[in-house]
């Protein structure tokens, strides 16, 4: 495997939508459609050959053909196999799939479909330019007081119509991933352009602000016990009927009335919230005119947040510390606070009641329950990673090392090796196939945990265990050809052999907007549908990112039908491009 893999400038698709009758469209759209002759075409086509009803040839020699399920672009001279045939469909590329006619204009086309006219262009960008474009969109339309998850749109398909409010259940975790990408970006630019270069300084500002947003969640509850909030809102934002929210007021916090709190009899419960929020962090909402009493935070935090936030803390400590003493202290103290909370509470994150939250459980009794038996393989690695990362971040051993050694002696490291087999065993009980029962959000948690463990562990025996444990996840992560999984794996296991060309399709073929859009593969003639025993459907091959739905890491990108993904009513953050891109650059996997 030759590294670094060189990313060449690559075209990205850009669709501009117009209403039927748009006068700027070429008159040829009204001509009798010309049916293409694909009888001897050498490559698979997304539509059935007999279904193609119109075509146009652009200046570059590409044949664009329309069918009842979308537009196909064919140019067998393209360098990469995956670029020789491209497919454009509802709803990111077209207003609907029923193509009536196509007219060429230079290397672009105008497409007449049943409900509108679309101008489709292929615009060439470098991978870095694309990262900048996507970051700009995120900072403009997605971030909410520097938290980055996704934003809903008032107008379908129009990113500029993003709503000002809207929290995400996993704001902390997703923002930590975004921040991690920006930390890598800063490290790369500092190395390549110098610490005082404008782009370096801009990167530092973005990364610092994202880190602050995550750190804020670690203080915002006012509990002062290291408990981390999932997310927070201000009083001007609507509170969804989704879980456990506390409204802060005068050093106290009261559980708001939601279905969850009512069912559990805890609506109106008042708890202490007097611990101060560091000014540096409170600034994120105070600058917008909100006081501490205007804050509503979400509790019942899961291990997802803790894991991803630890990755961010560790990356900050490794790549950014030493330049901002105040932030360095906050990072170190946050790592101590969370770790102390987990150890003080017997390896769990405890909510106001003193009971553990639903998903933040790292103790052995939980591992011996039916749910915990499968979770144990990930959760054991998570808590080991927290301890290892805390030692590295703080430079302290003491309590952290004792706990780490104790957990290792109790078999926590070896538990990670059992992930695949326990998953299969659980499926045998439910009579399901492996992929039918995957919790896709766990992929990134496992990746973060084993990546850090493998980078930090010096004991060869333990390192070997962690690497082997990491590889038990590859059955389900490698098939996604996602550099966000593959690059940490390569950083952890340098001998791994990966298909870099396939993986880097992620950068070549990512859209220049994270505007979401559901995609159904029904009717695709070039991709098998894979049927599992319990009825789940998947694509038989991983499609390029611009031909599958846009999501975070918590979904199966091979999903065959994903009409439930929210469609073009939402714009996602750029993390899923920028994190692997800058990480790959940092480690020299790509350039």
């Amino acid at each position, binding site marked *: 495997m030759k590294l670094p893999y060189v990313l060449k400038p690559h075209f990205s698709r850009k669709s501009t939508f117009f209403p039927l009758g748009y006068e700027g469209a070429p008159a040829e759209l009204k001509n009798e459609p010309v049916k293409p002759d694909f009888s001897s075409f050498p490559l698979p086509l997304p539509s059935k050959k007999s279904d193609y009803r119109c075509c146009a040839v652009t200046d570059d020699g590409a044949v664009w053909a329309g069918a009842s399920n979308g537009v196909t672009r064919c140019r067998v001279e393209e360098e990469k196999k995956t670029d020789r045939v491209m497919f454009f469909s509802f709803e990111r590329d077209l207003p609907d799939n029923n193509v009536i006619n196509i007219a060429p204009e230079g290397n672009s086309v105008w497409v007449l479909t049943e409900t509108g006219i679309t101008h489709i262009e292929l615009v060439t960008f470098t991978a870095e330019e694309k990262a900048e474009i996507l970051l700009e969109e995120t900072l403009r339309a997605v971030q909410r007081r520097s938290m980055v998850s996704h934003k809903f749109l008032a107008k379908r398909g129009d990113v500029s119509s993003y709503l000002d409010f809207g929290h995400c259940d996993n704001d902390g975790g997703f923002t930590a991933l975004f921040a991690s990408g920006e930390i890598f970006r800063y490290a790369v630019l500092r190395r390549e352009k110098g610490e005082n270069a404008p782009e370096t300084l801009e990167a530092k500002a973005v990364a610092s602000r994202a880190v602050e947003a995550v750190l804020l969640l670690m203080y915002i509850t006012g509990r002062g016990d290291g408990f981390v909030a999932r997310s927070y809102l201000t009083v001007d934002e609507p509170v969804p009927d989704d879980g456990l929210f506390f409204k802060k007021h005068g050093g106290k916090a009261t559980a708001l009335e939601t279905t969850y709190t009512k069912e559990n009899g805890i609506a109106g419960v008042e708890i202490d919230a007097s611990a101060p929020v560091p000014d540096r962090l409170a600034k994120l909402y105070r600058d917008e005119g909100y006081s501490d009493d205007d804050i509503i935070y979400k509790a019942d935090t899961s291990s997802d947040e803790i894991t991803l936030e630890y990755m961010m803390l560790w990356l900050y400590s490794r790549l950014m510390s030493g330049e901002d003493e105040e932030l360095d202290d906050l990072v170190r103290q946050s790592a101590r606070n969370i770790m102390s909370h987990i150890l003080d509470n017997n390896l769990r994150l405890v909510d106001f009641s003193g009971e553990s939250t639903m998903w933040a459980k790292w103790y052995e009794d939980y591992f011996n329950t039916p749910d915990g038996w499968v979770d144990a393989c990930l959760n054991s690695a998570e808590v080991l990673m927290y301890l290892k990362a805390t030692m590295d971040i703080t430079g302290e051993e003491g309590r952290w090392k004792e706990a780490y050694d104790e957990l290792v002696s109790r078999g926590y490291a070896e538990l990670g090796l059992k992930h695949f087999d326990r998953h299969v*065993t659980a499926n045998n009980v439910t009579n399901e196939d492996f992929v039918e029962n995957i919790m896709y959000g766990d992929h990134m948690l496992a990746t973060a945990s084993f990546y850090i463990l493998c980078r930090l562990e010096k004991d060869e025996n333990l390192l070997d265990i962690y690497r082997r444990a990491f590889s038990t996840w590859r059955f389900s992560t490698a098939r996604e050809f996602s550099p966000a999984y593959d690059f940490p794996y390569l950083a952890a296991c340098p001998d791994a052999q990966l298909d870099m060309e396939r993986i880097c399709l992620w950068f070549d073929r990512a859209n220049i907007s994270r505007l979401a859009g559901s995609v159904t593969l029904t009717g695709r003639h070039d991709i098998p*549908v894979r*049927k599992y025993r319990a009825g789940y459907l998947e694509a038989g091959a991983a499609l390029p990112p611009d031909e599958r739905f846009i999501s975070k890491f918590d979904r199966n990108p091979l999903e065959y039908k994903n009409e439930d993904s929210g469609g073009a009513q939402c714009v996602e953050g750029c993390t899923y491009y920028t994190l692997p891109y800058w990480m790959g650059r940092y480690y020299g996997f790509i350039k």
Partner: protein
Amino acid sequence: MNKEIHLIGNAHLDPIWLWRWQEGCGEVLQTFRSALDRLNEYDDFIFTCSSAAHYRWVEEIDPAMFEEICEKVKAGRIVPVNGWWVQADCNMPSAESYARQALYSQLYYYEKFGRICRTGYNVDSFGHSRMIPQLLKKGGMDFYVMMRPEKHENADIPAPLFNWHSPDGSSVLTYHIPNGYARDGVESIDEAVGFLGNMADENNCDVMMFYGVGNHGGGPTKGDIEHLEKLKENGANIKFSSPDEYFTEVCASGVDAPVWDDDLQHHASGCYSATSLIKKLNRKAEAWLQNAEKWNTVACKTAGQPAKTEEFKEAWRKVCFNQFHDIMCGCSIMEAYDDVRDSEGYAMTVAATAENNALLRLTLDMNTWLDGVSETKTLNARHHCRNLDYPRPVAVFNPNSFDVTVPVRAYHPSSKVENSNHEPVLFQNVRSSRSNDSHLDTVFLAKVPALGYAVYWLYWGKEERGFYEPGIDSDTTANDSDEITIENKYLTVKFSKSNGAVSSLITKADGREYAEAENFCLPTVFDNTKPDTWAHNIFKFDEVIDTMKLQSIKLVESGKLRSVVRTKHTFGKSIITQDFILSSGMKALRVKAKAIWQEPLTILKIPFPVKGEDGISTYEVPGGFIKRPCNGEEEPALKWGDISVSSDGSRYGVTVFSDSKYSYSCPENELRLTVIRNSIFADHYSDRPAADFNYCDEGVQRFEYAVMPHSDDVDIAQTVKTGEMFLNRPVAVPCGYHKGTLPLEKSYLTIDAPNVIADAVKFCEDGSGDAIIRCREVAGKPAYAMIKCDMLDAAFYSDFYPTEIKTFRIDKDGYVTETNFLEGIV
């Protein structure tokens, strides 16, 4: 005792072993009758029974009893296990055979009982390839029960439970029977209950106890059942159960079984070389059926031929039946192999007929017309190639899913051979097998596309001349002096006139010598007096008696297409003749051998010693490959074995291909192909009471092998393809002259990944008209493959895990569903 013993009532039924199949069939009927009676007598009793072939016998012979069985299956009292036609040998059948084992039996179970088997069950099979987990999983099974090798044969294999992984990621939870599959009698059962109770506690895991009179059937007796009931009343933690119930409960309890990601060897190391007849028949029938199905599908889709799905099903069922472990392993009685030969003959007749019909039908649509050909002098001249002034068209059909360039033989000599573009190709007139008519045939170098054909034009040559100049350059030369030397552009091969061995084998690209020892390809006789037919407790056959003595050596052919050296060696009253054939452009030296063997209790091996260090042997196994240490143990393998070594900082080795053998060994750096193992039929633990024994490899046998040297480590993908090509030879079909719509060269299937091949192209078993293409990754690396089949209007991409087998179902509109061996029917 906290953990439970699940009591698995069963009857091990060998349909053939020390008896013929007719006896086995009767045994099956009697066993089911007995089991049904016991089920009616004892409410808790459950009977576990494998092998769809056995159920089908009952259905055909005693429908009333079959109805009883169906009711008991519905009630969960009879539990079918092993979604395979029989308890097959688990090393020698091809991957496609295992697919058919699952396909025909699981569909049978589904049709008759409304369910398929989740548990694979081969309790007596003698060893298990590492691909078995995938082959089970893709056949709808999650669990597996096996017994051999036992602890004394391989103590490393975990017991009683382990998670068994295949390289593609398939995993089956496997129960390794620790103390026999057929406990019966009070004493035996008591001992087993005690032993298993301790094992359960030690492992903190439920266990299974298999009881019931077995081998020749029988099943649980009244005495056994009543004794077990009494034990239970007395507090033993036991319950009547089935493997399905056991596995489900164990999984639900959250057991952490150890992982095993290797094969399961060795038990009966002699079984992979005993009785060459069944080995050859199996290899040939598997290949022929696969190829015939491909061509039938092509002819059906493109030329209106009827689909022969039902005929193929019956033929495959015969092949599957004969893969029963005691049959395929060559350890049944002599008379049984007469039956085996006949039923394999049935299967191959089905294949031959379907293939011939399809190929001839396709040729009729080829445009082979030549202007003026109808103006020849007489009707006789019009059709009789000897008298024609025109070249005769010969269509060469390639059943492989990749392009091939190989020598092909056609009837009659030729003066010139041209390809479909009328460009000259290399050819040579060679001695035919006929003793009258013309004495020569034409061998020409054909280049044929994947699953396709190419028409060649053969100009008639006169018998008395024989030699014609092809008119193009050739890379083959031969020289007969102190040594005989034959060469092509890749290889220089020399033969010793003193012992008939290959004295030098040099690759021209790097000048490396591969045959430094004196016994390269020299037939060598080994002692076989100690092992029984199975070779119980013996894992190496390495006691050399002698090398065979050279009687003659001769350069018998030397032409532009190929050179042939013939050696004849003797030992005692036995003879082996080997034709070493080096053809133009071939990287392998091919050997056609004929042995007349009359030496009792001997083994014949062909050795391939290579000098170097760090030797690793690699072998083809069903659907994949495995690397093994060079420790001299006899190893089961399919069409090829390889030895690769290091020397002077570089790697190199030789690969040996075989058309019909399954047994190899590799002591240090000497790879050996075991070609004859002449044991007494069904000689069990070598008691050998005085008798005039019959031997399982005596008489005449013909086989072929090939040797291919290579630099670097073995290139698995290329080796697999060479092995496939060695077995699935292109077929030359003489055509008539006619106008037609088909071009003179055509491919029906394209796969663009070099490490993906197609084993099957067939119709779906449900009669829908949908087609099935089954492909597999062969090199142990992930693949992203384009698969294109115009006749099915299908072209698609698919991702493969390393060594993954994928089954694609293609509907009439060319839309593709990825399914498993059961074709999406279940």
